[in-house]
């Protein structure tokens, strides 16, 4: 290009980058500042929480303080307090002079004198000690002697000491003393000081006692904290340091910083959800649980889950994000956490939702299809024992063989010593086998027990031919909840033809049997018996709002439509009587869950008559297909597919296993293994892609995750619908959420080996047999009986409620209880009655317990009240004749007419009785419990008819509160104790005398 262009300045060398540099440096600096801010503030949001907490809590306490101070002031004004205070002042005044003197002598005389003597003494002693050491290390005897002399010289040396006088006058005496004298002086002054202090303490004893009493009165009367305590809390807040608050459990390396934000959790003041404006600051809503699970020992996330380490944000801390495997439990499921350690129990005190869930798992029969460790443990134990027996027998046979061989070898060995060795071996084996025999015997007993205990959840379907109305069966199978809303039999998703096939199989494979035919009973009497004998502890009648009775067993509102009258009579009369089954030997016959109420045949007929009337006039279409063998054949497939044999005894399917998943650790199953199917995306978007979301939806509608799926009928989800209520779903979800593989080592888990294990085991039996249906076993328990209008509305009937079992273990003797559980009639002949409370209409039924179960139950009651098993009876002083007379008078006094309520054995009188007979007291009750019972029955059995306040305190004994009978006035002993002894030594003759006196 010819045209010469003007050279432009070089852009690289001429351009300045100052602006770029400046801008980017500024940006970098800003990012550094940001990083620091991020680190210091954003990453540590708890600082804001703590600053707020300090402000809010200080304000809260400042408001609370004057209130509490006012309350305290009011208490101080109370005459009792004033009186104590005055006494205290007096007591203090009395000794004040001497106390002051002691203090003066000690401080001004004894201690200075002691110190002076000690100082001088110590100088000499150190010198001596140093010389002694020289002796010890010296090899030269001459030198040793020399040094010893030196020591003697020191000992003899006279030292001048200024000793203050011991009387506290402050004067000083000048003394010349030797080593021993100094030591003596020092020791004597030491002793003097001790003596003076002891005297001082003794003088103040009364005052201190009174002060304790006064402060105790304050603590006793003051609800919440005292003003000074609150001042202390305020001071804590004033010195509050912002920083991570953490609990670190070294052995499991658990770090929980929950309290960095939840600052009020462990405060001694109760802080409500909004007391500090935000619920995050509330105190723990269950301080009782916190008290037994000290956070310093258990942490927080061990129960609640969440990421205890994370303090960056709520989401991180609560672990509610995809990658944290242990997200915080929601409040309604919080009890799920209990199972980390309380996995072996069916009842965990304090975990009501969880217990409800477990109870549902047991009593809705979930375990029929889904194994869960602990549920139906008997059948597993049985299998294990059978295996064990086989092994033992094999061992025994092998030993026997070896024994024969040893003997043979011994017989043929060359020398005697060798032969002896062989014979000894044979002998040892023989002994081993005899031990094995004993073991086999014990296991055999165990096996018998277990065989009695193993039972399926639902009724045996082998009986349906004799039991049920044929045409009713398909209708029932089709939709049990239509016939009986809320029934435990769930609704399967069956095709009509499957219903027919299943009915056909069941019908054709049921047992044929003859039933004794019964005349129709009196249904009016039957109704009364049904409502009062105890049937309603488990069964209910009426549907919807008018439903009355327990939920443990079937609702009988339409039972008349389905069941044969004759069968009903047999069943009510004796549930253990079954149609003979040629395939099953008698000892393997399953025992029914339904107990016997020991009804007479007439009573059974009456009840059956009443129940037969419980029906609507629905017609059932004929079902000829039920006799078609082809249908039955197809039915077998369906029955297998739906797992009917999981809950029912069905001919030909005795060995069938469970069809569902094992749920023992379902809560820790990886989320990806829960099949959300087509709902996955929806779940993720709506935020329920979690165990909780899965369980809740699955329980609400087991077919939920089939929705939208294109599947063959038999490929669809098999779980039937139980039509659970929202509460039940929450309870079961809680239970399943907590069903996890525990991450805690053994020392954390509640797997006691002492008597508490007996409590754990007992609850399983109690839940399985619905003892709660009639008895209150835990305070707050509402038994089914307590919901029946008759018992709630009429105070007379309220007295007819079955007894509470709160302190049963302390009350009765274990041997007696065991007998009673075996046979509640307490008699081999008069079985149609209650053994103890014959006046009760309701009857303690005879359960088909195995020996093992009875023993477990007995241990349960004993363990709950910390009673020793076996029980060694207390020795009881025999009554002197005069004591007997006093006892008699007290027993029959107008003020305590014991025999007005207690049974006496006279039928006419026992009609009105509301308490047991004294004659069985000695073998049944425990004296110490009886003594406490007499004093304050209401604290042992709230609501009891036995009145409180029969005795009043007089010095260190209890005396009768009413008009004291003449002879008793001179009796110096304890009246309640006397009455107890009298009661325990009562016999029929004595009782007759009392009756006469009455």
């Amino acid at each position, binding site marked *: 290009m010819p045209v010469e262009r003007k050279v432009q300045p070089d852009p*690289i060398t001429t351009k300045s980058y100052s602006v770029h540099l400046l801008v980017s440096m500024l940006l970098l600096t800003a990012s550094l500042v940001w*990083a620091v801010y991020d*680190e210091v503030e954003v990453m540590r949001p708890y600082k804001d929480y703590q600053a707020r907490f300090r402000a809010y809590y200080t304000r809260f306490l400042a408001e609370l303080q004057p209130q509490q101070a006012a309350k305290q002031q009011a208490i101080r004004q109370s005459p009792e307090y004033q009186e104590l205070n005055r006494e205290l002042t007096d007591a203090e005044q009395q000794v004040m002079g001497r106390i002051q003197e002691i203090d003066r002598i000690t401080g001004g005389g004894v201690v200075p004198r002691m110190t002076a003597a000690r100082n001088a003494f110590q100088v000499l002693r150190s010198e001596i000690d140093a010389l002694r050491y020289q002796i010890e290390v010296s090899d030269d005897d001459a030198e040793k002697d020399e040094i010893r002399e030196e020591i003697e010289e020191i000992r003899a040396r006279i030292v001048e000491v200024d000793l203050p006088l011991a009387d506290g006058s402050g004067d000083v005496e000048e003394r010349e003393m030797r080593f021993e004298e100094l030591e003596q002086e020092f020791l004597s002054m030491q002793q003097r000081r001790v003596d003076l202090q002891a005297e001082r303490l003794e003088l103040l004893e009364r005052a201190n006692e009174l002060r304790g009493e006064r402060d105790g009165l304050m603590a006793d009367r003051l609800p919440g904290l005292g003003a000074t305590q609150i001042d202390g809390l305020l001071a804590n807040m004033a010195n509050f340091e912002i920083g991570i608050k953490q609990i670190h459990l070294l052995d499991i390396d658990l770090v929980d910083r929950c309290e960095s934000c939840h600052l009020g959790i462990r405060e001694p003041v109760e802080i409500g959800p909004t007391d500090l404006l935000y619920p995050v600051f509330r105190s723990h809503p269950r301080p009782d649980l916190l008290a037994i699970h000290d956070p310093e020992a258990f942490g927080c996330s061990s129960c609640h889950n969440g*990421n205890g*380490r*994370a*303090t*960056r944000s709520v989401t991180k801390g609560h672990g509610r994000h995809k*990658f944290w495997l242990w997200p915080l439990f929601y409040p309604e499921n919080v009890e799920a956490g209990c199972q980390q350690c309380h996995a072996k129990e069916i009842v965990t005190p304090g975990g009501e939702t969880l217990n409800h869930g477990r109870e549902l798992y047991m009593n809705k029969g979930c375990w029929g299809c889904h194994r869960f460790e602990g549920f139906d443990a008997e059948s597993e134990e049985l299998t294990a024992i059978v295996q064990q027996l086989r092994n033992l027998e094999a061992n025994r046979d092998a030993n026997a063989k070896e024994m024969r061989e040893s003997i043979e070898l011994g017989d043929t060995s060359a020398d005697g010593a060798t032969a002896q060795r062989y014979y000894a071996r044979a002998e040892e084996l023989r002994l081993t086998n005899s031990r094995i025999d004993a073991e086999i015997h014990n296991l055999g007993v165990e096996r018998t027990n277990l065989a009695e205990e193993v039972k399926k959840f639902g009724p045996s379907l082998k009986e349906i031919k004799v039991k049920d109305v044929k045409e009713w069966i398909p209708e029932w199978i089709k939709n049990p909840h239509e016939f009986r809303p809320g029934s435990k039999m769930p609704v399967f998703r069956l095709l009509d033809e499957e219903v027919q096939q299943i009915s056909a199989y069941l019908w054709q494979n049921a047992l044929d049997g003859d039933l004794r035919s019964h005349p129709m009973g009196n249904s009016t009497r039957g109704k009364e018996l049904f409502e009062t004998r105890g049937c309603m502890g488990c069964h209910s009648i009426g549907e919807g709002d008018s439903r009355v009775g327990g939920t443990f067993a079937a609702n009988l509102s339409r039972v008349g439509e389905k069941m044969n009258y004759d069968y009903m009579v047999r069943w009510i009369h004796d549930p253990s009587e079954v149609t003979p089954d040629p395939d099953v030997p008698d000892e393997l016959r399953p025992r029914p869950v339904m107990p016997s109420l020991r009804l007479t045949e007439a009573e059974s007929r009456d009840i059956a008559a009443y129940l037969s009337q419980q029906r609507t006039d629905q017609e059932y279409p004929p079902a000829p297909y039920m006799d078609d063998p082809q249908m039955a054949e197809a039915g077998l497939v369906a029955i297998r597919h739906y797992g009917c044999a999981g809950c029912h005894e069905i001919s030909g399917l005795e060995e069938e296993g469970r069809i569902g998943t094992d749920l023992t650790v379902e809560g820790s199953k990886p989320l990806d293994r829960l099949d959300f199917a087509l709902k996955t995306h929806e779940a993720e978007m709506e935020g329920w892609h979690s165990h909780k979301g899965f369980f809740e939806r699955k329980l609400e509608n087991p077919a939920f995750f089939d929705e939208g799926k294109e599947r063959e009928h038999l490929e669809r989800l098999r779980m039937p619908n139980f039509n659970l209520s929202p509460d039940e779903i929450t309870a079961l979800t809680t239970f399943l959420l907590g069903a996890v593989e525990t991450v805690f080592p053994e020392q954390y888990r509640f797997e006691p080996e002492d008597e508490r294990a007996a409590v754990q085991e007992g609850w399983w039996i109690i839940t399985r047999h619905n003892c709660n249906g009639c008895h209150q076993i835990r305070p707050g328990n509402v038994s089914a009986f307590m919901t029946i209008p008759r018992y709630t509305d009429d105070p007379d009937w309220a007295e007819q409620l079955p007894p509470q079992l709160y302190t049963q273990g302390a009350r009765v003797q274990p041997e007696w209880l065991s007998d009673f559980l075996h046979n509640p009639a307490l008699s081999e002949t008069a079985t149609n009655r209650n053994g103890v409370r014959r006046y009760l209409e309701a009857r303690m039924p005879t359960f088909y317990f195995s020996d093992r179960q009875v023993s477990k139950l007995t241990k349960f009651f004993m363990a709950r009240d910390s009673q020793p098993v076996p029980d060694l009876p207390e020795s009881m002083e025999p009554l002197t004749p005069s004591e007997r007379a006093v006892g008699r008078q007290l027993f029959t006094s107008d003020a305590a007419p014991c025999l007005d309520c207690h049974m006496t054995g006279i039928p006419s009188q026992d009609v009105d009785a509301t308490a047991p007979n004294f004659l069985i007291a000695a073998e049944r009750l425990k004296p110490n419990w009886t003594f406490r019972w007499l004093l304050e029955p209401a604290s042992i059995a709230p609501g009891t008819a036995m009145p409180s306040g029969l005795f009043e305190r007089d010095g260190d004994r209890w005396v009768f509160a009413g008009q004291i009978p003449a002879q008793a006035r001179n009796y110096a002993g304890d009246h309640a104790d006397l009455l107890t002894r009298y009661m325990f030594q009562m016999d029929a003759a004595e009782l007759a005398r009392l009756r006469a006196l009455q």
Partner: protein
Amino acid sequence: MAVSKKAATKSTPSATNGSNGSRQLLGLTVDPQEIKQKALMDLKAIKQPTKTEVYKSIFRVKHDQTARSRTLGVLSNVFLHLHPARVNRDAVRFSFTWGMGGISFYLFWVLTWTGVLLMFYYHPTKVQAFRDILYLEHDVPFGKLLRNMHRWAAHAMVLTVQLHMFRVFLTGSYKKPRQFNWSVGVILLVLTLLLSFTGYLLPDDQLGFWAVTVGTNMARATPMLGHEGPFGPQFGMTPFNDVRFALLGGSIVDANALLRAYIWHCIAIPGFAATFMIVHFWRVRKDGGISGPNRIMLESEIKPLRR
């Protein structure tokens, strides 16, 4: 040597002076005038810190504007040890270089430092590894920042290395005389990827675990050396002696794999990478700086090939 000798001779008189002074001190006679003078000298020295021996020993001597002193300046400048004194103007132009090589090096440097800091908090054991990451995330001051920086710098480095290579290719900079340096660069790319890959496993979470599982599963199929590869079984390969076993220290990704990944990640590969980087940079210098110096060449100017 010559310099130190000179210094030694210079210092001799002052040393004798000092010994004179000390003799006076022993005699307890103090000359206030002399002490004052010495104090003044010290003060003067403080006023001109650049003149002190301490300063000079650290920052070298300020040179006069002579050719010799300039040479000394170049020789003693730390930056000019890494770069030549002058570079082709294109090497300064960002649009030409994209700066990716330098950025890659800088990122490597960042990774080294953050990595070293992370090593303080990390134990390559199955029990502790994951916990340590949580610890870093929640406890260690700036721990989250540290880990994030390490991770993102690693990702960025994989990108910048690739871009660097892309640029080198587009400018034909691998051509004579830089063929070998390109090969070194390729090896550095491989090392970069391996560094990142070995680091992936270290948090011991699902992400890393399965990424490494997938990655190492391919090794099963190595021909002849993997038990699932062609001719592998014929060579007697089983899951317990093949190349994958060697990589993982076991037949599954477990504690040994973690430890191996750790050692490869922290010691072996960085060592190789550093070595190759040194070679790479040295070759850049020796090959005449970055490729910019070459004139553009016309087709007509191609010289015939001489073999």
